């Protein structure tokens, strides 16, 4: 094999590897990417039950209800226009409180409840999940400074 041929073979192999990776990636992305929904999106787009989705919004005031088993929590996520019931079994994140932002990964059941596998709450005072930036939450926020007095 001549040097030129070997070089060409290597280039073709590299191309095949990268294209292969791309194809594999595209294939895997098709059914494994989670689409982000707000409660209003769920009303509008009606995602199928069982499909993996990511739900984001504000935890409605007075909606957090702890179940008798001590580890399951039910609450409502709202975005100002629609509401979505969520059930989660596990330890809630440190910053999970009523009126604050939350992002939940999980799926809808056939009766319309959202079963969350994981919850992500606001990380710190400077951080709002990127998906929630556009949502107006001023009306529902607990003001921390009024609590101090």
């Amino acid at each position, binding site marked *: *094999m001549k*040097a030129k041929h*070997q*070089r060409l073979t*290597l280039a073709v*192999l*590299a191309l095949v*590897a*990268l294209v*292969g*990776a*791309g194809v*594999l*990636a*595209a294939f*895997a*992305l098709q059914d*494994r*990417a*989670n*689409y*982000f929904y707000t409660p209003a999106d769920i009303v509008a787009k009606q995602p199928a039950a069982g499909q*993996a989705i*990511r739900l984001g919004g504000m935890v409605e005031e007075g909606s957090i209800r*702890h179940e008798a*088993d*001590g*580890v399951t929590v039910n609450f409502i996520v709202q975005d100002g226009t629609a509401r979505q019931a969520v059930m989660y*079994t*596990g*330890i*809630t994140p*440190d*910053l999970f409180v009523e009126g604050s932002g939350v992002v939940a*990964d999980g799926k809808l059941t056939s009766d319309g409840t959202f079963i969350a596998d*994981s919850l992500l709450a606001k*990380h*710190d*005072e*400077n*951080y709002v*999940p*990127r*998906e929630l930036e556009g949502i107006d939450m001023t009306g529902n926020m607990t003001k*921390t400074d009024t609590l101090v007095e």
Partner: protein
Amino acid sequence: MIAEAGLIALWLAASMAFLQFALSAIGLVKGQDELFKAIRPVAIAQGVLVAISFLLLVWLFVRSDMSVKLVVANSVAIKPLIYKISGAWGNHEGSMLLWIAIMGVAGACIGIFERNLKQKTLVTTLGAQAFISIGFYAYLLIASNPFERIFPVPADGQGLNPLLQDIGLALHPPTLYIGYVGLSIAFSFAVGAMITRDVGPEFAKAMRPWVLGAWVFLTLGITAGSYWAYYELGWGGWWFWDPVENASLMPWLAATALLHSVTVLATRDGLRAWTLMLAVVAFSMSMIGTFLVRSGVLTSVHAFAVDPERGSFILALLAIYIGGAMALFALRVGSVKEGSQFEPVSREGALVANNLLLSAILGIVFIGTLYPLFVEGMSDEMISVGPPYFNLATGPIALILVAIMAAGPLLRWRRDSAKALLNRISIPVFLTAAALFALVLFTTSMSVLPLVGMALAAGIAVASFAPLWKRNLRRTPMHTYGMIIAHFGIAVALVGMASETSFTEERLVAATPGDEILVNKWKIKFEAIEPVAGPNWTALEARVTAQYADETIHEIAPQNRMFASAQMQTSEAALLTRWNGQLYVVLGDSDEQGRWQLRIWWKPFVTLIWYGGVLIALGGLLAMIGRLRRASHQKKQRAYAEAMI
């Protein structure tokens, strides 16, 4: 005054970088050698000045100088000293200053230690290094000045995010940054070599220790980051495919490919263009990672501030540096003559396979990480790409890669026969088959990837030592031991990952003091809840005793901490480590009936993941030391031979 001194030092360092670039550029164009003599001292001066600037920032944090905006925003007077120091880089501006400081010091190190490179290539390399630095200096001085004062001076600072008040934070970012920025040296070497058209074994031998060094730090940084996320976040996971984790993984993948291809270039003078390409890609990945993390386009614990102006600045820097290097590569690749040839079944062949597969994994991680941004740009939909995608797409390729890793070191350079290879590798193959058989027979809960992974690990663990077969152990070079240990580390980590994925047991309970919980062979008793206080926090602490089988009883204490300064809570998981795994207990909330949530995991052999990571880094370190020693030894011999003549 300290803040002003720091800023002046930073400006001086920036002007040194400019001088360094100018000297190199003028010297090259005019061919004036006397200009070259000045470049080493200038590079060293730049490194010293920027290091001083960074140390002054740390000093401001240690003194809690509340007249500096950055200290106010990220520190508080009552805080343990170590977190005051680490607070200096636990924020946007400080971390960028750390980045440029490491870059300056790395340039100075080239100036002091690099003696193997041809002068012209060295000068071009230092010029390229300075050119990159200039952009980051401009970024710091224009868009994110860490020494900005605040007026009126507040009484106290706002404190550091409690999640970041941890020994992990003190060590993880600097380690990772040294790795990221160390790759800039490989990048500059490649640019220098492309400009001077000096690509060959000598160049590869000069570049290799730097690549190895950067890679060792990257490996350690990723390992430390993984362990930090594991115990600090309280989610019990060790890798989340979070964009920021991916941002550190991508340079590592490229650097791993690079350090293998550079060996082909050094030993056999092959893969010239490919090695240059990888050197460019590796540092590009570091910069893209920095962009993703620091610009705030992706959300994560690591995104300090969302600031579009800064994002565009870094994006522009990226475009200039990556685009420039790629353009240079396209211009010069034709004139880079390919070196010697090899047969498909050979050491080179295996290393090419290693490179292609690593590139494929890199491509998949890259696509998955950036795809959400792309979708958002194209439509108004938002998506997230998580573990299901990454595990499915990278897992199988990674397993093929590690299988080739077992065979590669047993192949001869240039040409070998498949039959001879099968002979040499028969024992590991048999072990893998046996392990596969046993696992299928005796376990029930394993899915395909962990199953194959664990079986392969059994074979690799043995195969990694096979290069020592029938060799004089004392005469085997140190870098060979380095390779063996690193490859063995992969097997160790693989066992940990497969075991954690397949055999973890989890219980989630609401318990009242006095309750007993059984997990695997553990008998866990929830004794009491007590309040405790630390230097800047108060906590509720659960007193828990745990007993494995009939062994001694251990006490552990998971906590829920409240930080006075930030009004936020973090949960501190309690870990109990045995040789065969870790018990992981998290305390949750209480309810009206006085019950407390406890989440308990038993994770068999999970620690092997990080032990494996440390072994991999140790292997890299040995290889680097071995190479450096051999180079200096050969130099002495050459000098001696010349003296004899």
